[in-house]
């Protein structure tokens, strides 16, 4: 079996972002999707701190501390891009104007529940940022994550044990083992990496997986 590495996962997600889409890429792993968006498509990247038409990282020495992304890294603005304040930025999400958001996750349940903001551990400082707004606001919420934790537990689960970010909000999960569509309270496998059987995956995930390939 050949697992996808993080670069290959980012590349895989990027293929599914259509021309003209307004897209928010969450901090961390999803940010990498920007590097693989097909050059022949015009795609609008939204950053919740207040810009549309986000471009790539600036050249060294060209950084501007007033021009950053949601991860607080320096970025650029594409020609035609624009700035706006926070109320407008989150209206774009809640109002259903953002077509797709791509988020990382601690856990995703088969019904689409998402847990990605807090482990709930005692003593851990909670921080939520825009995760809850994105999860419920975007027209489609995609998750991008490694399917298993370091200790081998599936992050695609029957019910999330971590505190929830949003209810029944995830429609698709891209992982290093395959792609899952979530609907009708079940995970539907649409793609598997080569050398991995559905039976084998079911055993490791511990969930009924519908074959939708």
């Amino acid at each position, binding site marked *: 079996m050949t697992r996808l590495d993080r670069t290959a996962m980012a590349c895989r997600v990027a293929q599914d972002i259509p021309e003209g889409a307004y897209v928010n890429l969450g901090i961390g792993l999803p940010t990498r999707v920007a590097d693989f968006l097909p050059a022949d498509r015009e795609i609008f990247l939204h*950053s*919740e*701190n*207040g*810009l549309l038409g986000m471009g790539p990282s600036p050249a060294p020495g060209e950084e*501007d*501390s*007033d*021009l*950053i992304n949601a991860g*607080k890294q320096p970025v650029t*603005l594409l020609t035609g891009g624009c*700035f*706006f*304040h*926070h*109320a407008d*930025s*989150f209206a774009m*999400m*809640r109002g259903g104007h953002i077509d797709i958001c791509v988020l990382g996750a601690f856990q995703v349940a088969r019904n689409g529940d998402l847990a990605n903001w*807090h482990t709930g551990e005692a*003593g851990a*400082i*909670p*921080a*939520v*940022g*825009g*995760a*809850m*707004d994105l999860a*419920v*606001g975007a027209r489609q919420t995609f998750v991008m994550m490694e399917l298993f934790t370091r200790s081998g537990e599936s992050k695609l689960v029957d019910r999330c044990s971590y*505190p*929830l*970010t*949003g*209810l029944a909000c995830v429609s698709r999960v891209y992982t290093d083992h395959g792609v899952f569509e979530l609907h009708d309270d079940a995970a539907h496998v649409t793609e598997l990496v080569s050398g991995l059987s559905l039976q084998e995956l079911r055993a490791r995930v511990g969930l009924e997986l519908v074959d939708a390939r």
Partner: protein
Amino acid sequence: MINKECSSIDEAVGTIGSGASIMIGGFGTAGMPDDLVDGLIRRDVTNLTIISNNAGNGETGVAALIKAGRVSKIICSFPRQADSHHFDSAWRAGTIELELVPQGNLAARIDAAGSGLGGIFTPTGFGTSLAEGKEVRRIDGKDYVLEMPIRADFALIKAYRGDRWGNLVYRKTARNFGPIMAMAACCTIAQVEEVVPLGVLDPENVVTPGIFVNRVVTTGSMQAGGAPQ
């Protein structure tokens, strides 16, 4: 003649007292009104409630205020960051109270206060621990949580240019919370790179109309292309 321009940072923050609630603009360090916060630290005020997106980054702005022991409560969306060590220490020592609010709800609650609304029904957070105990309502088949407005005694914001009537324009993503915080405080104080004569700001492009701004002050240390570090 109306002139909202103050001659110094200290004058601009001179009426802020202990126990005040203060909105502080900025997302990370972009839009953080460092000079106003430094002025606040120079005043011997304490027991402040701060409303800001983050709980401080590095050593400046909100981080410096927390380090100085002036903050008893912070309302924010994303306190935990790689460089939020001053907040982390205060939180672990139990000297600061945290109210965690999803970022869009923070913006909407501030916006509601500034717009005179009694609250908002938002889908964000429904069914999560951050909505526990709050009133919920199903509207057109979708579930919402009632969130209350957030007002403050003062707002400290950073803009790019302003005029003596308080009209403001911002620079790039430093705009973030500035326009809505300006609306939601009893007294809004803006630090700007430059105060320009009336009429210089294009009326079509004024972002914050002066009605929302009480004081404007210039900060000599700011330069286009970079906030003070």
